[in-house]
């Protein structure tokens, strides 16, 4: 499976590009670690470690839904590509073994390609930043444990969702109860929610209690192990359900998308696919959860850390735009597109149809979120600026992502040169609008003019990228 995953990625780029990913992670880790002492006055090292672990935990959650992933591999027709996870239909091993292998494959894959190079970058930076090597190693172990807990939790939750909605809801409810008990009610320490943090918090530079640290180390390992084992034993050995009879609803989608003109049929198919694959609800969930996490983070910075940052509706609008990138990935991954080779449609047309589907599916919820934030913060007077910021940053980021990655955003983003351009494209405008938005209260005319200028530049860039789709992908194939 490791070789299969490797070849899949190499197929999208090349072996050289694939192996430059760890170098890229190394460089980023080195840069941030080397500049950490400069930032230490404004951001204490404890907060940096906390946010790193929280981020890695969420990353583990996002990549660990093997229940859904495996089911998708088994159900979906991949044309020319077959995956080993489907081999229990033919070879003498079980689906449980196949899923367990998939879990181990990704743990090895992410630890070796992302976490270990990150450790290398921080270790090299410790020469200039004067970190203790032992502290760096402790941080690495903690981050690895946080990742393991995240990926195992996600694995178990996704398998339970397919086996028993009640058990899934019980698991998520328990997690949310712990989150509220820690974040809102302050009844429990973070270690109860993320035991790996207990390991970090009890060792230098944050603490000095070896026994407590050892206890949380064991708890973290056992928790990850138990969740992964439970997930594996919960995998169904007859994973495909019976064929369902479906009411022919595609003509209705087709009629409803008449406005899309030359993209009508493709857009209708995208929307129909999203509804039938269950992707629409998963996608909206994947949109809502980051929005809630963002709200929690800003609340925590303002109230928990008591840092008086001027988060306002315009800031949220810019952030919402950046979540769209993930959703474009989802839409691009709903079904294989091999069959389109037989039809007179081009890759740019299909990308444009996916973009149109994205905007149709997200415009209401994104607008609702920003209006809700404005109402909650009594900032409706900022909506005239926040809503254009929302629409323009969303359009810019998603269309730029489509331009950079075509129909394979998940894989092409592993290409470090694409990733660098993607980071530059996605971070710079958000950073500009974020900084300017903080000045809206103190200097509204200057800030609004600056934001309008950034939006104008983004709009022009969006049009450029949209038009450039044709030139870049007109001769691309679907295979």
């Amino acid at each position: 499976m490791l070789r299969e995953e490797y070849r899949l990625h190499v197929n999208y780029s090349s072996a050289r590009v694939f192996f430059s990913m760890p170098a890229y992670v190394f460089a980023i880790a080195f840069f941030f670690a080397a500049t950490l002492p400069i930032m230490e006055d404004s951001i204490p090292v404890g907060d940096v470690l906390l946010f790193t672990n929280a981020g890695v935990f969420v990353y583990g959650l996002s990549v660990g839904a093997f229940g859904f992933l495996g089911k998708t591999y088994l159900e979906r027709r991949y044309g020319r590509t077959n995956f080993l996870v489907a081999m229990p239909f033919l070879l003498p091993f079980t689906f449980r073994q196949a899923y367990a292998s998939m879990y181990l494959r990704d743990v090895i894959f992410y630890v070796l390609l992302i976490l270990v190079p990150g450790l290398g970058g921080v270790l090299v930076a410790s020469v200039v930043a004067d970190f203790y090597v032992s502290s760096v190693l402790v941080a690495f172990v903690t981050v690895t444990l946080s990742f393991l807990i995240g990926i195992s939790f996600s694995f178990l939750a996704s398998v339970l969702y397919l086996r028993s909605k009640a058990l899934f809801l019980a698991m998520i409810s328990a997690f949310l109860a712990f989150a509220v008990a820690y974040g809102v009610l302050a009844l429990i320490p973070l270690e109860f929610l993320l035991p790996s943090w207990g390991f970090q918090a009890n060792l230098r530079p944050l603490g000095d209690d070896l026994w407590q640290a050892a206890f949380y180390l064991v708890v973290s390992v056992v928790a990850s192990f138990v969740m992964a084992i439970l997930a594996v034993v919960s995998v169904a050995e007859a994973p495909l359900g019976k064929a369902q009879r479906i009411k022919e609803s595609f003509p209705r989608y087709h009629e409803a998308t008449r406005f899309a003109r030359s993209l009508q049929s493709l857009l209708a198919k995208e929307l129909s696919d999203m509804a039938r694959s269950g992707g629409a609800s998963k996608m909206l969930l994947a949109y809502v959860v980051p929005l809630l996490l963002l709200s929690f983070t800003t609340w925590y910075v303002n109230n928990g850390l008591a840092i008086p940052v001027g988060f306002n509706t315009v800031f949220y609008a810019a952030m919402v735009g950046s979540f769209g990138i993930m959703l474009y990935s989802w839409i691009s991954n709903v079904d294989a597109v091999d069959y389109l080779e037989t039809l007179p449609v081009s890759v740019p047309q299909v990308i444009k149809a996916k973009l149109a589907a994205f905007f149709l599916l997200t415009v209401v919820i994104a607008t609702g979120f920003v209006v809700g934030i404005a109402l909650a913060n009594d900032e409706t007077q900022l909506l005239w600026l926040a809503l254009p910021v929302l629409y323009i940053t969303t359009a810019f980021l998603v269309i730029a992502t489509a331009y950079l990655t075509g129909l394979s955003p998940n894989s092409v983003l592993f290409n470090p040169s694409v990733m660098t351009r993607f980071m530059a494209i996605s971070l710079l405008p958000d950073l500009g609008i974020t900084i300017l938005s903080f000045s809206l209260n103190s200097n509204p005319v200057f800030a609004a003019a600056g934001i309008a200028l950034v939006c104008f530049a983004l709009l022009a860039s969006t049009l450029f990228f949209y038009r450039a789709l044709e030139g870049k992908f007109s001769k691309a194939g679907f295979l």
Partner: protein
Amino acid sequence: MKAIEVRGLSKSYGDKLALDSVTFEVEQGTFFGCFGPNGAGKSTLLRLLTGQIQPSAGQATVLGIDCATQGLEVKRSIGIVPEVESPPSYLTAWEFLYFTGKVRKVDDLEKRIDRWLDFFDLQEARGTLCRDLSKGMRQKVMLASAFIHEPKLLFLDEAFINLDPIFQKRLRDYLLKLRSEGRTIFLCSHILEIAQRLCQEVIVLDKGRLVARELMSDLQGRNESLEQLFMRLVGEGDTNRP
């Protein structure tokens, strides 16, 4: 105008030369066969001719349309049955044909869909998602999708695979009818018995090179079957038989 004209067509995938300076032409109304062992370059040739991929060198036209620069126009004019049967997972057979018909702007679409569902005996499965269909049924859906706009030229890559004998015969008869109507059919296949009955002219590819071009009438005149020709040209070195 020739149905297909190929001049010095080559295709490389990295260091590997999949097709090496192939030249041939196909008259309109011909049932044309393309044969060769696995990896000979048949599917690559078919994908080049249908505008799916770009050549590394040479030129090809289909119905007078340049395959490299006007791929979409080529696909509008032809029907394609790909090597792997992969209709979309989340549409039913009926809906996929509806989608295909709308993309191709086919008139009288619903009648035509019904005709093809009847032809391939798919009415029972019309409400089943393509992902839940058997391999044979998916192949039938892909065939119906290639036939629905009644193109002048059909490209079929292993079109008979996965079909039971009843539908192999039904498909064979239909293709012969198309041939009699003056339509052109370009068939890649390993099933030489079927090809023997259908094709009027054949080419044989081996390791990316065109190693033979024969009229079936010439073969018959020499009392040589397609299988014998094939084995003589590319099967001689087969020393790994059990």
